[in-house]
């Protein structure tokens, strides 16, 4: 086993006092470089809390226990300034809602370049050139036009691509994608997922993909971590989990997905990709 | 809470009193109201009698708040002033509420085309601050306590009309009102029997919010010589007649002013508390 990119040990998150129920309870897993790990669970299972804990973006009241080892440091112990240097530059994050995750009153250019200016000390012109490349890399047809737009002028799929491109400009080693496709329609979903695979193949980044939709990750994840009620109920390679689920909850998740697939298309297993 | 209605039908009193701002506001208000009601019995001197003590005497055991430029007892005048201020406030709010609610209901039940026109007019008037409106009206009505009350009442109408319209429009869209309309009940009956009782509680709460504005306007008008006329004691008019003596007798400035501030503050605290209590955004904060 190679050295893990990030490893979580016994991560516990509480939103109340020490006696309150834990939203995340003793979770441990790792992401290797070049690996796509899917963190699967229904809403409320604690999976989004984990991604926010990695970024230290949990609300102030949250209590974090355990450790998050990344690049030799425990992210759970860093102060705000140290964390600000890691966010964006070393760990990129893509959020769920492309409609609300871009600032409506700032131009795409501003939102694409500010990270470069902040972390790489680039001039505006340099940052703009780099951002244009990043937009082209995620398959945006007219990058220059998009750069000078405002978020409300773009479609949902475009905004999600902009978000991904913005996260990629800084070339982070780890990409956290929190439900990156939930708000999009089916064809765009498939395109965005393909894009993530493509990025992994080209750059060798580690990707932690957080989703409630086991079907969405079926084709692209190398490993799956299934969560329920704040605990990991199952973890393993995709084949292992899909073909021999040890936990009834996982079986139910897969069953629900298979039933849905069957209702939509005749033979889900041989269908391959969606798009 | 059922829908977009801004206020719940019933405000739970015990829960309300647990909020510090409502408790403090209610305490201050109780003192002020008690002072106003009991003024003639508690006041140690006749508030109109000159030379009750030496002129411009600082606060002493005999004159708790000192005396004014004519030797009148300031404590007695401030006590009686509470009557004038609260009286004007109450009368203005009651009259403003009555007319505002009527207009608001009428607009809510008027035909679609007229509705837009009426709302526009209300909005135009509402866009002017109520002090300015009261000032303009009293300029033409003429100075005096009654005219000032009337002017303040009129200045409150657009606010109450706007709020009532909002509440009534929501209520009107509900199935039970539609059912009553289909059943052939007349519009006045529907307003009275169906809509008004359902929005009444919210209106009373909002009415209380108008108090602070009414009392500030009353004090301001009296200070300018357009409201309560001297020698009648009212907080604004006491300040107006004492303003030339504030260098020698700052107590003439302090006591009536603090009385206004505390009264207005009590209404504002209560209003704020009620808003906290009913604003769904604040609920999560202290779950």
């Amino acid at each position, binding site marked *: 086993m190679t050295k893990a990119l990030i490893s979580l040990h016994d991560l516990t998150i509480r939103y109340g006092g020490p006696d309150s129920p834990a939203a995340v309870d003793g979770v441990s897993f790792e992401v290797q470089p070049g690996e796509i790990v899917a963190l699967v669970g229904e809403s409320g299972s604690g999976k989004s809390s984990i991604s926010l804990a990695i*970024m230290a*973006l949990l609300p102030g009241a949250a209590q974090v226990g355990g450790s998050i080892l990344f690049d030799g440091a425990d992210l759970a112990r860093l102060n*705000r300034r140290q964390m*600000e240097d*890691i*966010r*964006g*530059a070393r760990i990129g*994050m893509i*959020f769920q*809602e492309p409609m*609300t*995750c871009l*600032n*409506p*009153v*700032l*131009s795409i250019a501003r939102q694409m370049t*500010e*990270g470069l200016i*902040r*972390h790489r000390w680039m001039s505006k012109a340099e940052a703009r050139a780099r951002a244009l490349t990043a937009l082209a890399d995620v398959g945006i047809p007219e990058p220059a036009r998009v750069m000078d737009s405002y978020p*409300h002028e773009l479609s949902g799929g475009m905004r999600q691509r902009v978000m991904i491109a*913005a996260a990629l400009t*800084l070339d982070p080693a780890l990409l956290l994608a929190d439900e990156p496709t939930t708000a999009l329609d089916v064809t765009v979903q498939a395109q965005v997922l393909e894009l993530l695979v493509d990025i992994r193949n080209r750059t060798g980044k580690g990707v932690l993909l957080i989703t409630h939709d086991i079907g969405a990750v079926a084709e692209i994840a190398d490993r799956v971590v299934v969560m329920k009620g704040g605990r990991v109920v199952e973890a393993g390679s995709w084949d292992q989990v899909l073909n021999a689920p040890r936990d009834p909850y996982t079986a139910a998740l897969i069953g629900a997905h298979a039933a849905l697939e069957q209702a939509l298309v005749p033979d889900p297993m041989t269908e391959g990709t969606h798009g | 809470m059922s829908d977009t209605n801004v206020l719940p039908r019933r405000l739970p009193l015990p829960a309300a009193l647990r909020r510090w*701002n409502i408790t403090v506001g209610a305490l201050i208000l109780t003192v002020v109201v008690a002072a106003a009601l009991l003024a003639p019995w508690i006041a140690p001197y006749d508030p109109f009698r000159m030379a009750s003590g030496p002129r411009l005497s600082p606060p002493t055991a005999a004159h708790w708040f000192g005396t004014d430029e004519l030797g009148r007892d300031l404590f007695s005048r401030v006590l009686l002033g509470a009557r004038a201020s609260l009286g004007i406030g109450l009368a203005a709010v009651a009259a403003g509420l009555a007319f505002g609610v009527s207009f608001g209901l009428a607009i809510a039940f008027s035909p679609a085309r007229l509705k837009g026109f009426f709302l526009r*007019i209300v909005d*135009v008037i509402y*866009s*002017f*601050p109520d002090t*300015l409106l009261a*000032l*303009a*009206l009293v*300029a*033409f*009505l*003429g*100075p005096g306590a009654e005219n000032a009350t009337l002017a303040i009442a009129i200045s409150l109408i657009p606010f109450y009309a706007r709020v009532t319209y909002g509440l009534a429009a929501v209520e009107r869209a509900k199935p039970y009102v539609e059912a009553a309309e289909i059943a052939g009940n007349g519009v006045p009956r529907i307003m009275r029997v169906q809509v008004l009782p359902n929005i009444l509680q919210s209106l009373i709460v909002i009415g209380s919010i108008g108090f*602070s504005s009414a009392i*500030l306007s009353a*004090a*301001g008008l009296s*200070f*300018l*010589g*357009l409201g309560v006329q001297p020698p009648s004691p009212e907080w*604004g008019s006491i*300040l107006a007649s004492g303003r030339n003596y*504030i*260098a020698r007798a700052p107590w003439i*400035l302090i006591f009536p*002013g603090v009385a206004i*501030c505390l009264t*207005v*503050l009590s209404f*504002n605290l209560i209003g*704020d508390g009620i808003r906290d209590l009913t604003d769904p955004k604040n609920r999560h*904060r202290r779950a």
Partner: protein
Amino acid sequence: MLTFVARRLLTAAITILVVVFLAGVLIHLVPGDPITAMLAQSGNASAVDIARLTEQYGLDKPVWQQALLYVGNVLQGDLGTTIRGNEPVAPLLLGRLPNTIILAVAGLGTALALGIPMGVIAAVNRGRAADFAVMLIAILGVSIPGFWMGLTFIQFFSLHLGWFPVAGTSARNIVLPALTLGIVHSALVARMTRSALVDILNEDYIRTARAKGLRESEVLMVHAMRPAMISIITVVGLVFAHLLGGQVITENVFSWNGIGRLAIQAMLQRDYPLVQGFIVIFATSIVLVTTALDLLYGLLDPRVRRR
């Protein structure tokens, strides 16, 4: 964007016309015969005077015709003549306008300079002691009558400390009235800033900005304050309107030679044409400022700008 501007300008024009019309109607609130009431004030009323004033106000015509007559005159720049001294109203008021504008701008500037930082501090420290303190100051601020605060300032800063002259209209004199207006209205600004910012700080795009590793100060000053300024600008119009209302009284407290002081004198002397003129000028100022701010809002918010 063009239709947006055109619509706002049209609404503003109509609003002003409605207000002028209402100002024309207002004179009928005067109990009894307004002419008699006016002349009673100035003392010796001759039949000629009565005829002149009746003619000037068209009081022999129905109310709506008189009001329209007034609107017509105002549109030609004629606000009538004062009862006392028979001077034209328009130049009299316009001569005082600069003083009023200077004080209003100074007051509004003070209100924003105090209120916005207070609101930001409260929003950033939401639920903590600093938030509570700011909100307490804000609620005290809206509970203190401006004229009383003004008198207190005079007593303390002018009479007791001797830092400022007691009254008058000069550069040195503006400090206390501007501070009075500013403090009273900063409470409103602080509350609005706080509520706008509290909402914005919960937005997803703030989390995105933090996830980029931007410094917290940059997240606050750019990602949160830009959208917050847009909502604050919309309420500046409201604050300005309230401030003009308070200014009438403040000008009187500090003997500041503006329109408000003239207006109160006119009210006490029942000089109705002058009062009408004051209403027209103040209302027009409020409408113009509100409209200008609405247009500025359109310019700042890309969602409106590109429509």
